[in-house]
């Protein structure tokens, strides 16, 4: 089989067939039996639905397929021909790299500048491929480097730099009743002004891994089932992936308008506190967090201006996940009527 064939944006057979509906797709990967899943994932790949994107996933390494299914088993797939947004293949570039000193190379439809990783941490390559394609290729949605969650009509954006704990906080909230949109990529529909869920594997690093295991174990006896193995020795240290809560996957197409922007700052030595910020500061933090603000231009400016006008904004400084969740919920409770959103200045 030629890999370039598997990466075609149109799944073969009859590209003129109607495109399958991207909504209410009931075909979940878990419904396929193990051998069928293995055959398809390692063969031509499986076209699946991840948030607003359709993506063909092909994985040549068995251990990576197992880890992948731990996270994505409840995601929908397409049996019909579908126009694909993305395509990801993880494979060894030659027999030596496939069997003797296996190395996972990731190929996407973008320029592939990623460094191959040892196959035993090939799941990291796969997730890097997902991130790469969205970060480089997504121009139809305004994108924020932010954790995003939603609940009861409240759309919360948490823009932050790497290391601020935004993934842990977004995941923590999602295991306490919030819908996880993303721990990494906030997506905004520019026409509707709505946040689009893009729930994927939550990337946990180093000290956040035991924190989240303890957090999930409080609600789920089978908590280990939500986590992949830990992958030591990556450029970011040890990484472990967490499956989004089942409800967040079920609600993958449930959109929410944003009305809260909270800037999280993790400081293990601080007292937990909510600090007011100006809307101007929140505006520029959203601009700075957006990877495609410059590409989209005027509509991006107007959309962020509208978000900030209609949102309550603050900064939280927190020493632990428990205190972070308390601070977020306290701030939102104080301004919980969405109709009031935007009437105060932070």
């Amino acid at each position, binding site marked *: 089989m030629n890999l370039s064939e598997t990466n075609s944006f149109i799944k073969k057979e009859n590209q003129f067939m109607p495109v399958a509906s991207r909504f209410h797709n009931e075909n979940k990967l878990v419904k396929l039996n193990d051998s069928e899943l293995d055959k398809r994932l390692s063969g031509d790949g499986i076209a699946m639905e991840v948030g607003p994107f359709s993506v063909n996933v092909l994985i040549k390494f068995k251990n990576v397929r197992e880890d992948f299914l731990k996270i994505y088993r409840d995601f929908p797939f397409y049996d019909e021909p579908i126009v694909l947004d993305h395509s990801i293949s993880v494979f060894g570039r030659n027999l030596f790299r496939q069997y003797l000193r296996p190395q996972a190379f990731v190929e996407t439809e973008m320029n592939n500048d990623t460094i191959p990783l040892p196959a035993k941490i090939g799941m990291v390559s796969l997730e890097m491929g997902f991130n790469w394609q969205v970060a480089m290729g997504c121009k139809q949605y305004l994108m924020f480097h932010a954790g995003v969650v939603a609940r009861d009509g409240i759309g919360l954006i948490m823009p932050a730099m790497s290391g601020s704990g935004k993934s842990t906080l977004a995941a923590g909230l999602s295991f306490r009743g919030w819908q996880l949109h993303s721990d990494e990529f906030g997506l905004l529909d520019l026409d509707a002004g709505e946040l689009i869920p893009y729930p994927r594997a939550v990337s946990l690093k180093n000290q956040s891994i035991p924190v989240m295991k303890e957090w999930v174990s409080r609600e789920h006896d089978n908590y280990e089932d939500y986590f992949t193995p830990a992958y030591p020795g990556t450029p970011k240290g040890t990484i472990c992936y967490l499956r989004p809560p089942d409800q967040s996957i079920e609600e993958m197409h449930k959109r929410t308008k944003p009305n809260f922007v909270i800037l999280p700052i993790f400081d293990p030595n601080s007292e937990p506190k909510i600090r007011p910020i*100006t*809307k*101007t500061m929140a*505006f*520029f933090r959203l*601009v700075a967090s957006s990877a495609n603000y*410059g590409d989209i*231009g*005027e509509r991006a*400016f*107007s959309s962020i*201006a509208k978000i*900030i*006008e209609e949102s309550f904004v603050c900064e939280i400084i927190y020493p632990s996940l428990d205190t972070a969740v308390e601070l977020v919920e306290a701030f939102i409770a104080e301004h919980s009527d969405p109709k009031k959103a935007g009437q105060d*200045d932070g």
Partner: protein
Amino acid sequence: MAIMPSEELINKSAVYHVVNTADFLWTSFEDSNILYDPASGHTQVLNDFAREILDLLEDGPKTVSHLFSEFEEIIEKELDPDLKNKIVETVINFDNMGIIEPV
């Protein structure tokens, strides 16, 4: 080293005008005004003082001396050197941002 007054950093005879005034997008929060310039793709924040200067330049091309005069009319008194320096610095910043240019 002596600090050069801002007035000496600018050509007082240069007439400045706003480059793309009709295309600017604006939004305002609290005491700041945020401008998006589609020509450069840059987003700038202006305080009320800078916004006032840009408004005067949007009314028509002006030299820095003209701006001094108009400001003196607005505040109904002679400008002190500090305020003149602030006006000049603001004009220099606008020029650097690319939102005004000499005619």
